[in-house]
Protein backbone atom coordinates (compact mmCIF):
# COMPACT_ATOMS: atom_id res chain seq x y z
CA UNK A 1 0.00 0.00 0.00
CA UNK A 2 1.36 3.33 -0.92
CA UNK A 3 -0.68 5.82 0.98
CA UNK A 4 -0.97 4.26 4.41
CA UNK A 5 -1.25 6.75 7.24
CA UNK A 6 0.48 9.61 5.53
CA UNK A 7 -1.40 12.03 7.71
CA UNK A 8 -0.15 10.43 10.85
CA UNK A 9 3.36 10.56 9.49
CA UNK A 10 3.07 14.15 8.36
CA UNK A 11 1.96 15.07 11.84
CA UNK A 12 4.56 12.98 13.58
CA UNK A 13 7.44 14.54 11.69
CA UNK A 14 6.67 17.87 13.28
CA UNK A 15 6.20 16.60 16.78
CA UNK A 16 8.45 13.56 17.21
CA UNK A 17 11.66 14.77 18.86
CA UNK A 18 11.13 16.64 22.10
CA UNK A 19 12.63 19.98 21.16
CA UNK A 20 15.29 21.44 23.33
CA UNK A 21 15.37 24.97 24.55
CA UNK A 22 17.20 27.23 22.12
CA UNK A 23 20.70 28.13 23.08
CA UNK A 24 21.53 31.36 21.36
CA UNK A 25 25.03 31.73 20.02
CA UNK A 26 25.64 28.02 19.64
CA UNK A 27 27.56 26.82 16.64
CA UNK A 28 30.55 28.34 14.95
CA UNK A 29 30.81 31.48 12.85
CA UNK A 30 28.21 34.22 12.81
CA UNK A 31 26.52 35.07 16.11
CA UNK A 32 23.68 32.63 16.53
CA UNK A 33 20.80 35.07 16.75
CA UNK A 34 21.55 36.60 13.33
CA UNK A 35 21.55 33.33 11.40
CA UNK A 36 17.79 32.66 11.17
CA UNK A 37 17.12 36.20 9.99
CA UNK A 38 19.78 35.93 7.28
CA UNK A 39 18.30 32.61 6.15
CA UNK A 40 14.80 34.07 6.08
CA UNK A 41 15.76 37.17 4.16
CA UNK A 42 15.38 35.93 0.54
CA UNK A 43 12.08 34.24 1.31
CA UNK A 44 10.75 37.29 3.11
CA UNK A 45 11.76 39.51 0.21
CA UNK A 46 9.87 37.29 -2.22
CA UNK A 47 6.75 37.15 -0.08
CA UNK A 48 6.96 40.88 0.56
CA UNK A 49 7.53 41.92 -3.03
CA UNK A 50 5.22 39.44 -4.73
CA UNK A 51 2.34 39.12 -2.28
CA UNK A 52 2.23 41.75 0.46
CA UNK A 53 3.20 44.76 -1.64
CA UNK A 54 0.80 43.78 -4.48
CA UNK A 55 -1.93 43.33 -1.88
CA UNK A 56 -1.33 46.88 -0.71
CA UNK A 57 -1.23 48.06 -4.31
CA UNK A 58 -4.48 46.30 -5.07
CA UNK A 59 -6.14 48.12 -2.19
CA UNK A 60 -4.57 51.39 -3.30
CA UNK A 61 -5.64 50.97 -6.93
CA UNK A 62 -9.18 50.18 -5.91
CA UNK A 63 -9.50 53.79 -4.69
CA UNK A 64 -8.11 55.24 -7.92
CA UNK A 65 -9.13 55.52 -11.53
CA UNK A 66 -6.48 53.53 -13.36
CA UNK A 67 -6.73 53.30 -17.13
CA UNK A 68 -4.44 53.08 -20.12
CA UNK A 69 -2.69 56.39 -19.48
CA UNK A 70 -1.92 55.48 -15.88
CA UNK A 71 -0.28 52.15 -16.68
CA UNK A 72 1.99 53.38 -19.47
CA UNK A 73 5.58 52.34 -18.92
CA UNK A 74 7.00 55.77 -19.79
CA UNK A 75 5.69 58.83 -17.94
CA UNK A 76 2.51 57.29 -16.62
CA UNK A 77 -0.14 59.85 -15.76
CA UNK A 78 -0.86 60.05 -12.03
CA UNK A 79 -4.02 58.17 -11.09
CA UNK A 80 -6.94 60.25 -9.83
CA UNK A 81 -8.14 59.44 -6.36
CA UNK A 82 -11.82 58.58 -6.60
CA UNK A 83 -12.55 57.46 -3.05
CA UNK A 84 -15.16 54.74 -2.90
CA UNK A 85 -16.41 55.33 -6.43
CA UNK A 86 -15.15 52.02 -7.77
CA UNK A 87 -16.86 50.14 -4.94
CA UNK A 88 -20.04 52.13 -5.47
CA UNK A 89 -19.91 51.29 -9.14
CA UNK A 90 -19.47 47.57 -8.42
CA UNK A 91 -22.32 47.45 -5.94
CA UNK A 92 -24.54 49.31 -8.37
CA UNK A 93 -23.76 46.95 -11.25
CA UNK A 94 -26.06 44.11 -12.26
CA UNK A 95 -22.94 42.04 -12.75
CA UNK A 96 -22.10 42.24 -9.04
CA UNK A 97 -25.09 40.24 -7.90
CA UNK A 98 -24.96 37.78 -10.78
CA UNK A 99 -21.23 37.12 -10.36
CA UNK A 100 -21.47 36.93 -6.58
CA UNK A 101 -24.37 34.50 -6.97
CA UNK A 102 -22.38 32.45 -9.50
CA UNK A 103 -19.35 32.41 -7.18
CA UNK A 104 -21.25 31.38 -4.08
CA UNK A 105 -23.70 28.92 -5.63
CA UNK A 106 -20.90 27.23 -7.55
CA UNK A 107 -18.70 27.01 -4.44
CA UNK A 108 -21.50 25.59 -2.28
CA UNK A 109 -22.56 22.95 -4.81
CA UNK A 110 -19.04 22.01 -5.90
CA UNK A 111 -17.67 21.81 -2.34
CA UNK A 112 -20.60 19.73 -1.13
CA UNK A 113 -20.39 17.30 -4.02
CA UNK A 114 -16.59 17.08 -3.84
CA UNK A 115 -16.63 16.31 -0.13
CA UNK A 116 -19.48 13.84 -0.49
CA UNK A 117 -18.00 11.93 -3.42
CA UNK A 118 -14.47 12.15 -1.97
CA UNK A 119 -15.53 10.82 1.43
CA UNK A 120 -17.55 7.97 -0.06
CA UNK A 121 -14.62 6.98 -2.28
CA UNK A 122 -12.26 7.25 0.71
CA UNK A 123 -14.49 4.94 2.74
CA UNK A 124 -14.71 2.59 -0.23
CA UNK A 125 -10.91 2.52 -0.67
CA UNK A 126 -10.56 1.64 3.01
CA UNK A 127 -12.75 -1.44 2.59
CA UNK A 128 -11.32 -2.70 -0.69
CA UNK A 129 -8.60 -5.33 -0.80
CA UNK A 130 -5.02 -4.05 -1.17
CA UNK A 131 -4.75 -4.81 -4.92
CA UNK A 132 -8.11 -3.34 -5.84
CA UNK A 133 -7.45 -0.32 -3.66
CA UNK A 134 -4.11 0.43 -5.34
CA UNK A 135 -5.77 0.01 -8.73
CA UNK A 136 -8.47 2.57 -7.90
CA UNK A 137 -5.98 4.98 -6.29
CA UNK A 138 -3.83 4.97 -9.44
CA UNK A 139 -6.99 5.62 -11.47
CA UNK A 140 -8.13 8.61 -9.42
CA UNK A 141 -4.57 9.99 -9.58
CA UNK A 142 -5.06 10.38 -13.33
CA UNK A 143 -8.01 12.70 -12.76
CA UNK A 144 -6.17 14.63 -10.04
CA UNK A 145 -3.01 15.09 -12.10
CA UNK A 146 -4.65 16.44 -15.24
CA UNK A 147 -3.69 20.13 -15.60
CA UNK A 148 -6.65 22.51 -15.16
CA UNK A 149 -6.44 23.69 -18.77
CA UNK A 150 -6.54 20.11 -20.05
CA UNK A 151 -9.42 19.31 -17.65
CA UNK A 152 -11.50 22.13 -19.07
CA UNK A 153 -10.72 21.16 -22.64
CA UNK A 154 -11.48 17.47 -22.17
CA UNK A 155 -14.84 18.20 -20.52
CA UNK A 156 -15.61 20.73 -23.20
CA UNK A 157 -15.05 17.98 -25.73
CA UNK A 158 -17.11 15.45 -23.78
CA UNK A 159 -19.99 17.95 -23.66
CA UNK A 160 -19.56 19.05 -27.28
CA UNK A 161 -22.90 19.49 -29.03
CA UNK A 162 -22.09 17.35 -32.07
CA UNK A 163 -19.23 14.97 -31.39
CA UNK A 164 -19.54 14.86 -27.59
CA UNK A 165 -19.77 11.55 -25.78
CA UNK A 166 -22.29 12.93 -23.26
CA UNK A 167 -25.00 13.66 -25.83
CA UNK A 168 -24.39 10.26 -27.36
CA UNK A 169 -24.77 8.58 -23.95
CA UNK A 170 -27.93 10.54 -23.14
CA UNK A 171 -29.42 9.42 -26.46
CA UNK A 172 -28.85 5.83 -25.37
CA UNK A 173 -31.33 6.22 -22.52
CA UNK A 174 -34.72 4.72 -23.31
CA UNK A 175 -36.87 7.54 -24.66
CA UNK A 176 -39.53 7.13 -21.99
CA UNK A 177 -37.00 7.36 -19.16
CA UNK A 178 -35.26 10.37 -20.68
CA UNK A 179 -38.63 12.03 -21.17
CA UNK A 180 -39.54 11.34 -17.55
CA UNK A 181 -36.24 12.63 -16.15
CA UNK A 182 -35.46 15.59 -18.37
CA UNK A 183 -38.62 16.17 -20.38
CA UNK A 184 -36.93 15.37 -23.67
CA UNK A 185 -35.65 12.35 -25.50
CA UNK A 186 -33.48 13.71 -28.30
CA UNK A 187 -30.12 15.08 -27.16
CA UNK A 188 -28.45 15.38 -30.56
CA UNK A 189 -26.81 18.77 -30.92
CA UNK A 190 -27.63 19.89 -27.36
CA UNK A 191 -25.32 22.92 -26.88
CA UNK A 192 -24.14 22.72 -23.27
CA UNK A 193 -21.72 25.62 -23.39
CA UNK A 194 -23.98 28.39 -24.69
CA UNK A 195 -26.05 28.92 -21.60
CA UNK A 196 -24.81 30.10 -18.20
CA UNK A 197 -26.60 27.46 -16.16
CA UNK A 198 -25.32 24.59 -18.30
CA UNK A 199 -21.81 26.09 -18.41
CA UNK A 200 -21.82 25.92 -14.62
CA UNK A 201 -23.19 22.39 -14.74
CA UNK A 202 -20.22 21.32 -16.87
CA UNK A 203 -17.89 23.33 -14.62
CA UNK A 204 -19.22 21.56 -11.53
CA UNK A 205 -18.75 18.15 -13.13
CA UNK A 206 -15.20 19.05 -14.22
CA UNK A 207 -14.17 20.51 -10.86
CA UNK A 208 -15.69 17.71 -8.80
CA UNK A 209 -14.03 15.16 -11.09
CA UNK A 210 -10.64 16.80 -10.61
CA UNK A 211 -10.85 17.48 -6.88
CA UNK A 212 -12.55 14.44 -5.34
CA UNK A 213 -9.33 12.35 -5.52
CA UNK A 214 -7.53 14.64 -3.07
CA UNK A 215 -10.41 14.35 -0.60
CA UNK A 216 -10.59 10.58 -1.08
CA UNK A 217 -6.88 10.01 -0.50
CA UNK A 218 -6.85 12.34 2.53
CA UNK A 219 -9.88 10.63 4.06
CA UNK A 220 -8.29 7.24 3.41
CA UNK A 221 -5.09 8.38 5.12
CA UNK A 222 -7.15 9.64 8.04
CA UNK A 223 -9.06 6.36 8.28
CA UNK A 224 -5.82 4.37 8.43
CA UNK A 225 -4.74 6.41 11.43
CA UNK A 226 -7.83 5.49 13.50
CA UNK A 227 -6.78 2.77 15.96
CA UNK A 228 -8.32 -0.59 15.04
CA UNK A 229 -9.17 -1.25 18.71
CA UNK A 230 -11.86 1.40 18.57
CA UNK A 231 -13.69 -0.46 15.82
CA UNK A 232 -13.11 -3.72 17.63
CA UNK A 233 -14.70 -2.31 20.77
CA UNK A 234 -17.62 -0.89 18.80
CA UNK A 235 -18.28 -4.28 17.22
CA UNK A 236 -18.19 -5.96 20.61
CA UNK A 237 -20.80 -3.52 21.81
CA UNK A 238 -22.97 -4.39 18.80
CA UNK A 239 -22.72 -1.08 16.97
CA UNK A 240 -24.00 -1.04 13.38
CA UNK A 241 -22.03 0.46 10.48
CA UNK A 242 -23.91 3.78 10.56
CA UNK A 243 -23.54 4.27 14.28
CA UNK A 244 -19.86 3.35 14.00
CA UNK A 245 -19.39 6.01 11.35
CA UNK A 246 -21.25 8.63 13.38
CA UNK A 247 -19.70 7.82 16.73
CA UNK A 248 -16.13 6.82 15.83
CA UNK A 249 -15.06 7.52 12.26
CA UNK A 250 -16.53 10.99 11.93
CA UNK A 251 -15.32 12.39 15.28
CA UNK A 252 -11.84 10.96 14.69
CA UNK A 253 -11.68 12.52 11.23
CA UNK A 254 -13.29 15.81 12.20
CA UNK A 255 -10.04 17.83 12.10
CA UNK A 256 -9.26 16.42 8.63
CA UNK A 257 -12.75 17.26 7.44
CA UNK A 258 -12.59 20.83 8.65
CA UNK A 259 -9.27 21.48 6.91
CA UNK A 260 -10.48 19.79 3.72
CA UNK A 261 -13.70 21.80 3.77
CA UNK A 262 -11.92 25.12 4.15
CA UNK A 263 -9.34 24.27 1.49
CA UNK A 264 -12.08 23.21 -0.94
CA UNK A 265 -14.08 26.37 -0.30
CA UNK A 266 -11.01 28.50 -0.94
CA UNK A 267 -10.11 26.63 -4.13
CA UNK A 268 -13.62 26.69 -5.54
CA UNK A 269 -14.32 30.30 -4.64
CA UNK A 270 -11.66 31.62 -6.95
CA UNK A 271 -11.97 29.15 -9.82
CA UNK A 272 -10.72 30.89 -12.95
CA UNK A 273 -8.90 28.71 -15.48
CA UNK A 274 -11.65 26.15 -16.05
CA UNK A 275 -14.41 28.76 -16.15
CA UNK A 276 -12.44 30.98 -18.52
CA UNK A 277 -12.00 28.10 -20.95
CA UNK A 278 -15.49 26.63 -20.65
CA UNK A 279 -17.20 30.00 -21.00
CA UNK A 280 -14.98 30.89 -23.96
CA UNK A 281 -13.14 33.82 -22.38
CA UNK A 282 -14.97 36.95 -21.34
CA UNK A 283 -17.70 37.07 -24.00
CA UNK A 284 -20.51 35.70 -21.85
CA UNK A 285 -20.97 38.31 -19.10
CA UNK A 286 -23.77 36.31 -17.50
CA UNK A 287 -21.32 33.56 -16.70
CA UNK A 288 -18.85 35.77 -14.79
CA UNK A 289 -17.82 34.86 -11.29
CA UNK A 290 -15.91 37.41 -9.22
CA UNK A 291 -12.44 36.50 -10.49
CA UNK A 292 -13.47 36.37 -14.15
CA UNK A 293 -15.31 39.68 -13.79
CA UNK A 294 -12.28 41.33 -12.22
CA UNK A 295 -10.13 40.02 -15.06
CA UNK A 296 -12.60 41.19 -17.69
CA UNK A 297 -12.76 44.75 -16.32
CA UNK A 298 -8.99 45.07 -16.02
CA UNK A 299 -7.85 43.44 -19.24
CA UNK A 300 -10.37 44.25 -21.91
CA UNK A 301 -10.15 47.56 -23.71
CA UNK A 302 -10.37 50.12 -22.36
CA UNK A 303 -8.77 48.64 -19.24
CA UNK A 304 -10.39 49.63 -15.95
CA UNK A 305 -7.70 48.50 -13.55
CA UNK A 306 -9.10 50.37 -10.57
CA UNK A 307 -12.50 48.76 -10.95
CA UNK A 308 -10.92 45.35 -11.45
CA UNK A 309 -8.81 45.86 -8.33
CA UNK A 310 -11.90 46.71 -6.31
CA UNK A 311 -13.60 43.47 -7.40
CA UNK A 312 -10.42 41.55 -6.56
CA UNK A 313 -10.39 43.25 -3.15
CA UNK A 314 -13.92 42.06 -2.43
CA UNK A 315 -12.94 38.50 -3.39
CA UNK A 316 -9.78 38.66 -1.27
CA UNK A 317 -11.63 39.87 1.83
CA UNK A 318 -14.14 37.03 1.52
CA UNK A 319 -11.34 34.50 1.12
CA UNK A 320 -9.22 35.86 3.96
CA UNK A 321 -12.19 35.58 6.31
CA UNK A 322 -12.51 31.92 5.35
CA UNK A 323 -8.73 31.52 5.70
CA UNK A 324 -8.87 32.71 9.29
CA UNK A 325 -10.91 29.62 10.11
CA UNK A 326 -8.24 27.46 8.47
CA UNK A 327 -5.36 29.19 10.27
CA UNK A 328 -7.13 28.81 13.61
CA UNK A 329 -7.56 25.11 12.91
CA UNK A 330 -3.85 24.67 12.13
CA UNK A 331 -2.73 26.80 15.09
CA UNK A 332 -5.05 24.87 17.38
CA UNK A 333 -3.38 21.65 16.29
CA UNK A 334 -0.09 23.17 17.53
CA UNK A 335 1.80 22.63 14.33
CA UNK A 336 3.29 26.11 14.24
CA UNK A 337 4.62 26.19 17.79
Amino acid at each position, binding site marked *: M*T*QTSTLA*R*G*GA*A*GSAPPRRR*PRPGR*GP*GMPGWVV*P*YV*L*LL*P*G*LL*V*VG*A*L*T*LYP*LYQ*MADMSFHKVGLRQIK*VNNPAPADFVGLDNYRQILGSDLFWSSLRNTVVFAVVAVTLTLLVGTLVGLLLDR*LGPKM*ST*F*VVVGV*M*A*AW*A*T*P*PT*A*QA*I*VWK*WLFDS*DGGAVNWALNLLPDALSELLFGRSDWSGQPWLNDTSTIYLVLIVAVVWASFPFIA*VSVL*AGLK*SVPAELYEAARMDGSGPLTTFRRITFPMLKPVFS*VLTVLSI*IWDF*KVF*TQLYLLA*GGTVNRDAFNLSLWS*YAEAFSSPPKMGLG*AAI*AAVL*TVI*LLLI*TLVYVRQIVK*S*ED*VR
Partner: protein
Amino acid sequence: MNPLARRRLGRIALNAAGVAVFVFAVFPVYWMVATAFKPDDQIFTTKFVPFPSPPSMDHVSRVFTKGVAGHSIWQYLLNSTIVALSAVVIGAVFALLAATAVARFRFRFRTSFLILLLIVQMVPAEALLIPLFTMVRRLGLYDQLAGLVLINVGLTLPFSVWMLRTFVAAVPKELEEASWIDGAGRFVTFWRVLFPLVAPGLVATSIFSFITTWNEFVYALTLIGDQGKYTMPVALQFFVGQRSTDWGGIMAASTLMTIPVLVFFLLVQRRMVSGLVAGAVKG
Protein backbone atom coordinates in the same frame (compact mmCIF):
# COMPACT_ATOMS: atom_id res chain seq x y z
CA MET B 1 -29.15 -16.07 2.52
CA ASN B 2 -26.35 -17.57 4.55
CA PRO B 3 -23.71 -15.23 5.96
CA LEU B 4 -20.94 -16.53 3.72
CA ALA B 5 -22.88 -15.86 0.52
CA ARG B 6 -23.85 -12.47 1.88
CA ARG B 7 -20.27 -11.54 2.56
CA ARG B 8 -19.26 -12.64 -0.92
CA LEU B 9 -22.04 -10.60 -2.43
CA GLY B 10 -20.86 -7.60 -0.39
CA ARG B 11 -17.32 -8.07 -1.67
CA ILE B 12 -18.55 -8.18 -5.25
CA ALA B 13 -20.60 -5.01 -4.74
CA LEU B 14 -17.59 -3.21 -3.25
CA ASN B 15 -15.33 -4.22 -6.12
CA ALA B 16 -17.97 -3.17 -8.63
CA ALA B 17 -18.12 0.24 -6.95
CA GLY B 18 -14.32 0.40 -7.12
CA VAL B 19 -14.38 -0.31 -10.84
CA ALA B 20 -17.08 2.35 -11.33
CA VAL B 21 -14.94 4.96 -9.54
CA PHE B 22 -11.95 3.94 -11.64
CA VAL B 23 -13.90 4.32 -14.87
CA PHE B 24 -15.35 7.72 -13.83
CA ALA B 25 -11.85 8.99 -12.97
CA VAL B 26 -9.98 7.55 -15.94
CA PHE B 27 -12.49 7.84 -18.78
CA PRO B 28 -12.00 11.57 -19.55
CA VAL B 29 -8.22 11.10 -19.56
CA TYR B 30 -8.55 8.04 -21.75
CA TRP B 31 -10.89 9.94 -24.05
CA MET B 32 -8.31 12.73 -24.39
CA VAL B 33 -5.61 10.25 -25.43
CA ALA B 34 -7.97 8.26 -27.66
CA THR B 35 -9.15 11.38 -29.50
CA ALA B 36 -5.55 12.43 -30.07
CA PHE B 37 -4.97 9.19 -31.99
CA LYS B 38 -8.21 9.16 -34.00
CA PRO B 39 -8.35 10.24 -37.62
CA ASP B 40 -10.70 13.17 -38.21
CA ASP B 41 -13.58 11.08 -39.56
CA GLN B 42 -13.72 9.19 -36.26
CA ILE B 43 -13.71 12.46 -34.28
CA PHE B 44 -16.29 14.53 -36.14
CA THR B 45 -19.09 12.03 -36.02
CA THR B 46 -22.17 11.59 -33.86
CA LYS B 47 -21.34 7.89 -33.60
CA PHE B 48 -19.45 6.61 -30.60
CA VAL B 49 -15.99 5.36 -31.54
CA PRO B 50 -14.68 3.68 -28.38
CA PHE B 51 -11.07 3.48 -29.54
CA PRO B 52 -9.11 4.72 -32.55
CA SER B 53 -9.25 2.04 -35.24
CA PRO B 54 -6.70 2.04 -36.65
CA PRO B 55 -4.76 4.55 -34.49
CA SER B 56 -3.44 7.48 -36.49
CA MET B 57 -0.42 9.63 -35.75
CA ASP B 58 -1.79 12.50 -37.88
CA HIS B 59 -2.56 14.92 -35.07
CA VAL B 60 0.48 14.15 -32.97
CA SER B 61 2.90 14.57 -35.87
CA ARG B 62 1.02 17.65 -37.09
CA VAL B 63 1.41 19.55 -33.79
CA PHE B 64 5.13 18.81 -33.91
CA THR B 65 5.83 19.57 -37.56
CA LYS B 66 3.28 22.13 -38.71
CA GLY B 67 2.83 23.40 -35.22
CA VAL B 68 0.35 25.76 -33.67
CA ALA B 69 0.05 29.43 -34.66
CA GLY B 70 3.25 29.27 -36.65
CA HIS B 71 5.37 27.63 -33.97
CA SER B 72 6.08 23.95 -33.49
CA ILE B 73 4.76 22.66 -30.21
CA TRP B 74 8.41 22.13 -29.23
CA GLN B 75 8.64 25.89 -28.79
CA TYR B 76 5.80 25.96 -26.26
CA LEU B 77 7.07 22.88 -24.48
CA LEU B 78 10.48 24.53 -24.30
CA ASN B 79 9.04 27.80 -22.93
CA SER B 80 7.08 25.91 -20.30
CA THR B 81 10.16 23.90 -19.34
CA ILE B 82 12.37 26.99 -19.07
CA VAL B 83 9.87 28.79 -16.85
CA ALA B 84 9.14 25.77 -14.67
CA LEU B 85 12.77 24.69 -14.16
CA SER B 86 14.03 28.21 -13.42
CA ALA B 87 11.22 28.90 -10.96
CA VAL B 88 11.80 25.53 -9.29
CA VAL B 89 15.55 25.99 -8.84
CA ILE B 90 15.31 29.53 -7.46
CA GLY B 91 12.35 28.61 -5.31
CA ALA B 92 14.11 25.52 -3.93
CA VAL B 93 17.15 27.52 -2.76
CA PHE B 94 15.04 30.18 -1.06
CA ALA B 95 12.69 27.61 0.44
CA LEU B 96 15.52 25.52 1.84
CA LEU B 97 17.08 28.54 3.56
CA ALA B 98 13.79 29.68 5.05
CA ALA B 99 12.77 26.17 6.06
CA THR B 100 16.09 25.69 7.86
CA ALA B 101 15.58 28.94 9.73
CA VAL B 102 12.09 27.94 10.83
CA ALA B 103 12.85 24.34 11.69
CA ARG B 104 16.27 24.78 13.30
CA PHE B 105 16.08 28.05 15.18
CA ARG B 106 13.86 29.62 17.77
CA PHE B 107 13.66 33.35 17.20
CA ARG B 108 11.28 36.26 17.61
CA PHE B 109 8.51 36.41 15.04
CA ARG B 110 8.97 32.72 14.16
CA THR B 111 5.32 31.90 14.80
CA SER B 112 4.26 35.12 13.10
CA PHE B 113 6.27 34.12 10.05
CA LEU B 114 4.61 30.69 9.91
CA ILE B 115 1.16 32.20 10.20
CA LEU B 116 2.08 34.72 7.52
CA LEU B 117 3.03 31.82 5.25
CA LEU B 118 -0.33 30.16 5.80
CA ILE B 119 -2.28 33.33 5.08
CA VAL B 120 -0.19 34.24 2.05
CA GLN B 121 -0.90 30.82 0.54
CA MET B 122 -4.59 31.61 0.67
CA VAL B 123 -4.47 34.97 -1.06
CA PRO B 124 -6.03 34.23 -4.44
CA ALA B 125 -3.43 34.50 -7.21
CA GLU B 126 -6.17 35.89 -9.44
CA ALA B 127 -6.60 38.85 -7.09
CA LEU B 128 -2.96 39.88 -7.38
CA LEU B 129 -3.03 39.73 -11.15
CA ILE B 130 -3.69 43.45 -11.65
CA PRO B 131 -0.98 44.88 -9.37
CA LEU B 132 1.54 42.26 -10.50
CA PHE B 133 0.75 43.01 -14.14
CA THR B 134 1.57 46.69 -13.64
CA MET B 135 4.67 45.80 -11.62
CA VAL B 136 6.00 43.42 -14.27
CA ARG B 137 5.44 46.04 -16.96
CA ARG B 138 7.22 48.68 -14.95
CA LEU B 139 10.19 46.34 -14.47
CA GLY B 140 10.34 45.86 -18.24
CA LEU B 141 9.54 42.16 -17.84
CA TYR B 142 6.32 42.13 -19.83
CA ASP B 143 6.61 39.58 -22.64
CA GLN B 144 9.67 38.05 -20.97
CA LEU B 145 9.81 34.52 -19.64
CA ALA B 146 11.84 35.98 -16.75
CA GLY B 147 8.73 37.82 -15.59
CA LEU B 148 6.80 34.55 -15.43
CA VAL B 149 9.66 32.91 -13.54
CA LEU B 150 9.56 35.67 -10.93
CA ILE B 151 5.78 35.40 -10.52
CA ASN B 152 5.91 31.62 -10.19
CA VAL B 153 8.59 31.77 -7.50
CA GLY B 154 6.21 34.00 -5.58
CA LEU B 155 3.27 31.67 -6.15
CA THR B 156 5.06 28.51 -5.03
CA LEU B 157 7.45 29.64 -2.28
CA PRO B 158 5.05 29.81 0.70
CA PHE B 159 3.88 26.25 0.22
CA SER B 160 7.43 25.00 -0.41
CA VAL B 161 8.67 26.46 2.88
CA TRP B 162 5.65 25.06 4.69
CA MET B 163 6.25 21.59 3.28
CA LEU B 164 10.04 21.57 3.55
CA ARG B 165 10.24 22.58 7.19
CA THR B 166 8.92 19.19 8.36
CA PHE B 167 11.70 17.48 6.41
CA VAL B 168 14.37 19.69 7.98
CA ALA B 169 12.89 19.17 11.44
CA ALA B 170 13.05 15.41 10.94
CA VAL B 171 16.86 15.42 10.62
CA PRO B 172 18.36 14.79 14.08
CA LYS B 173 20.11 17.87 15.38
CA GLU B 174 22.88 15.76 16.92
CA LEU B 175 24.36 15.17 13.46
CA GLU B 176 25.00 18.87 13.00
CA GLU B 177 26.35 19.22 16.50
CA ALA B 178 28.81 16.41 15.84
CA SER B 179 29.94 18.20 12.72
CA TRP B 180 30.50 21.42 14.66
CA ILE B 181 32.48 19.57 17.29
CA ASP B 182 34.67 18.23 14.50
CA GLY B 183 35.40 21.83 13.62
CA ALA B 184 33.25 22.30 10.55
CA GLY B 185 31.74 25.75 9.96
CA ARG B 186 28.06 26.48 9.56
CA PHE B 187 28.19 26.38 5.78
CA VAL B 188 30.13 23.11 5.56
CA THR B 189 27.77 21.57 8.09
CA PHE B 190 24.76 22.72 6.14
CA TRP B 191 26.15 21.52 2.82
CA ARG B 192 27.70 18.22 3.91
CA VAL B 193 25.34 17.11 6.67
CA LEU B 194 21.92 18.71 6.47
CA PHE B 195 21.57 19.06 2.71
CA PRO B 196 22.06 15.38 1.74
CA LEU B 197 19.56 14.32 4.39
CA VAL B 198 16.93 16.85 3.31
CA ALA B 199 17.48 16.18 -0.40
CA PRO B 200 14.57 13.71 -0.81
CA GLY B 201 12.22 16.24 0.74
CA LEU B 202 13.63 18.93 -1.49
CA VAL B 203 12.94 16.78 -4.53
CA ALA B 204 9.34 16.22 -3.47
CA THR B 205 8.81 19.92 -2.81
CA SER B 206 10.41 20.85 -6.12
CA ILE B 207 8.18 18.47 -8.04
CA PHE B 208 5.18 20.07 -6.45
CA SER B 209 6.39 23.53 -7.50
CA PHE B 210 7.12 22.22 -10.96
CA ILE B 211 3.55 20.98 -11.39
CA THR B 212 2.09 24.29 -10.16
CA THR B 213 4.30 26.31 -12.50
CA TRP B 214 3.79 23.98 -15.46
CA ASN B 215 0.00 24.28 -15.09
CA GLU B 216 -0.12 28.01 -14.36
CA PHE B 217 -2.51 29.74 -16.75
CA VAL B 218 -3.74 33.20 -15.69
CA TYR B 219 -0.36 34.91 -15.43
CA ALA B 220 0.99 33.27 -18.57
CA LEU B 221 -2.12 34.52 -20.35
CA THR B 222 -1.75 38.12 -19.14
CA LEU B 223 1.99 38.69 -18.94
CA ILE B 224 2.93 37.29 -22.35
CA GLY B 225 1.69 38.82 -25.59
CA ASP B 226 4.26 37.43 -28.01
CA GLN B 227 2.96 34.10 -29.35
CA GLY B 228 6.45 32.67 -29.63
CA LYS B 229 6.81 33.00 -25.84
CA TYR B 230 3.53 31.34 -24.87
CA THR B 231 3.65 28.45 -22.45
CA MET B 232 1.73 25.22 -23.12
CA PRO B 233 -1.47 26.01 -21.19
CA VAL B 234 -1.93 29.26 -23.13
CA ALA B 235 -0.89 27.80 -26.50
CA LEU B 236 -3.72 25.25 -26.23
CA GLN B 237 -6.17 28.05 -26.90
CA PHE B 238 -5.05 28.37 -30.51
CA PHE B 239 -6.87 25.17 -31.37
CA VAL B 240 -10.21 26.65 -30.39
CA GLY B 241 -11.53 28.46 -33.44
CA GLN B 242 -14.48 30.81 -33.82
CA ARG B 243 -16.58 28.28 -35.72
CA SER B 244 -14.96 24.93 -35.12
CA THR B 245 -12.34 23.47 -32.85
CA ASP B 246 -9.44 21.29 -33.97
CA TRP B 247 -10.25 18.58 -31.43
CA GLY B 248 -7.63 16.14 -32.68
CA GLY B 249 -4.84 18.69 -32.42
CA ILE B 250 -5.90 20.06 -29.04
CA MET B 251 -6.18 16.57 -27.56
CA ALA B 252 -2.72 15.67 -28.88
CA ALA B 253 -1.27 18.83 -27.31
CA SER B 254 -3.17 18.30 -24.04
CA THR B 255 -1.88 14.75 -23.84
CA LEU B 256 1.69 15.96 -24.34
CA MET B 257 1.20 18.56 -21.61
CA THR B 258 -0.33 16.05 -19.18
CA ILE B 259 2.31 13.31 -19.45
CA PRO B 260 5.09 14.98 -17.40
CA VAL B 261 2.64 16.04 -14.71
CA LEU B 262 1.19 12.57 -14.44
CA VAL B 263 4.63 11.00 -14.06
CA PHE B 264 5.72 13.49 -11.39
CA PHE B 265 2.39 13.21 -9.68
CA LEU B 266 2.65 9.51 -9.06
CA LEU B 267 6.07 10.17 -7.52
CA VAL B 268 4.92 12.70 -4.92
CA GLN B 269 1.22 12.23 -4.28
CA ARG B 270 1.80 10.82 -0.80
CA ARG B 271 3.77 13.81 0.38
CA MET B 272 1.35 16.27 -1.14
CA VAL B 273 -1.48 15.02 1.00
CA SER B 274 0.57 15.15 4.16
CA GLY B 275 1.83 18.63 3.28
CA LEU B 276 -1.60 20.08 2.64
CA VAL B 277 -3.33 18.61 5.64
CA ALA B 278 -0.28 18.69 7.89
CA GLY B 279 -1.22 18.95 11.50
CA ALA B 280 -4.82 18.03 11.01
CA VAL B 281 -4.40 14.59 12.51
CA LYS B 282 -2.15 13.87 15.42
CA GLY B 283 -1.44 10.42 16.81
